[in-house]
């Protein structure tokens, strides 16, 4: 028999620490009591995966392959050779990669499937450029913008998952990234179109975004406001 010197409660014989206050139990001189067979077992209930990955990949394969084949057949049989159906096939391929990539591997490795998603997007843009024969826009314009957007999403998701930011800092970070991303997009668009950068629409987006971010960061410093918002929105 042992008692917690801090709480004053009697503790079960097999406890090494008081569950209420974490105070170490000093082993008593008397011999340990016999177990009453009522202790907790060591093994844990492990949750079964409620999501069937194989079924999902099969379903998404059928859902994307069927319209792809149908549009290809319509384009081939009723049009002048293969023309517009390729865009739909590329887009459906991109949808397949985005939906299936998180479940292609045994372990959910976020950077890996996110890199695959970004690579698929860039490949899609290059294929559209090549098929449409509308000039050289994928490398100087689409790829840098796609990479920037992908990098921003990656930063956001990684930061949220690592719990480096909390509560109102999360929407503030989204606003900051939008404020940074828009001028960069405008730089690439201007350089592609006129070979020179002239600040325009992106400034009008960036200023309100930075203002919103500042407001949220100021509010975050007042815990009672955060608590009230948390109660209102139940987050």
């Amino acid at each position: 028999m042992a008692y917690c010197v801090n709480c004053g409660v009697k503790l079960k014989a097999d406890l090494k620490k008081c569950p209420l206050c974490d105070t170490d139990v000093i082993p008593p001189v008397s011999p340990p009591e016999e177990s009453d067979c009522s202790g907790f077992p060591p093994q844990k209930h492990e949750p079964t995966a409620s999501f069937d990955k194989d079924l999902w990949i099969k379903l998404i394969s059928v859902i994307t392959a069927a319209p792809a084949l149908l549009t290809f057949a319509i384009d081939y049989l009723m049009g002048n050779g293969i023309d517009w159906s390729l865009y739909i096939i590329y887009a459906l391929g991109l949808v397949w990669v985005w939906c299936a990539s998180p479940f292609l591997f045994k372990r959910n490795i976020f950077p890996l499937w996110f890199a695959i998603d970004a690579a698929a997007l860039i490949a899609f843009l290059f294929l559209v450029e090549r098929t449409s024969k509308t000039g050289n826009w994928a490398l100087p314009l689409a790829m840098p913008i796609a990479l920037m957007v992908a990098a921003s999403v990656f930063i956001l998701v990684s930061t949220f998952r690592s719990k480096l930011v909390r509560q109102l800092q999360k929407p503030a970070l989204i606003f900051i990234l939008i404020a940074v991303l828009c001028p960069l997009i405008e730089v690439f668009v201007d350089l592609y179109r006129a070979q020179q950068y002239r600040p325009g629409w992106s400034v009008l987006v960036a200023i309100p975004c930075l203002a919103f971010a500042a407001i949220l960061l100021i509010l975050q410093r007042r815990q009672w406001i955060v608590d009230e918002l948390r109660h209102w929105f139940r987050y």
Partner: protein
Amino acid sequence: MVTKNQSKARSYFRFDNAAHIYPAIKNRKQPGVFRVSATLTDPIDPQVLRQALNKTMKRIPGFSVKLRKGLFWNYFIHSEDELPIQPDVLNPCMEITRKENDGFLLRVRYHQCRIALEIFHALADGSGAMIFLKTLVAEYLKQMGHPIPTGNGVLDCAESAKPEEMADSFRPFAGGAHILKREEPRAYQITGDPIPTHDVILTRGTVPVEDMRKLAKSLDASITEYLTAMLLYIINCQQMQAPPHRLLPVRVQVPVNLRAFFNTETLRNFSSFINVGLEPRLGDFTFEEIVCQVHNYLRYEVNEKLLRSRVAANLRTESIPFLRIVPLFLKTPMISLGYKLAGPNTFSSIISNLGNVEMPEEMEKHTQRFDFILGASNDTKVKCAVAGFKGNLSIIFTRSIKEADIERAFFTFLVEQGIPVEIESNQE
């Protein structure tokens, strides 16, 4: 024996009023599962338990059901499949998934001398679950060669099931009752660092019932009223230690067994809830004042007329024509949202007292103890379940946060009142 026709007649069960909400709000963080367990004097033989469970499931077919989704409502369908029995675990009351449990809505676990029943709340309430467990334990003991008579909640597995046992008693009890408008603003919420979703921290305190009764009697209260007042007092003290910008009312939800007010043999859900609380903005409350307030409030609220009014309000929601014609896939998120906005926000914690567990004397001598555990939930961080057996009161706190402040204050308060408390926990 159950005839084929009887079995066919029972193959489909409509949800009762309380059951509608649980499948809609169920998820990993809110499994809607509770547990009752019996610890016997001898180690459990799984083979014998298997046979006893088969017989019990046949006797109580309302528990041998699987959840099915209809176009407008969920429903239960009777199943002749064998419910798997499982070894007990450190983290009980986790979500019962269709894949893991073959579609059944209950689990039977065993460990050393213990038989535990974990049950999804849509199926039954604590009283119904306790009758199932007592019948299962009695059947197990019978199979082990001990003569156990029926009575005191032990059903005879040789008899066939009665239709009344699976009846929905809410409608006959409260159908057509006048509905009183009640508004409960949000209450103070216990906060803390969350533990991983698939963990649960249980702290069990055992206290002598007689000492507890004397203590409660000294303030003219019942044990439930005294324990509820203690919980309110402690949660209010926690709020006062770090007062928020605006003080919030502290409320504790107390389930009420409606069987005491309506003659029914149902084993399904038949309980209501009362939120009893205090308003800290009115000033400082002494513990004695809180006990008096809880005592009077419960005495005022727990009567047939007001309980019928409460149940009628829930029944009315179910009868709203718009809600009835909305397909289930739209109804589920609507119910979930409605619950999130109006449900757990209105109380700070729950205390559920199953009362003194009674059973035939022949069964009692083979049983060491009974426990009652409420499942962890993300919305209500700390819950308390109470059950009395053989002169001891088992008080089990379930929490989903790291901080043990509430139960520590609770049990040390009892120690300060001169009540000996023995503590155990599932913490590694």
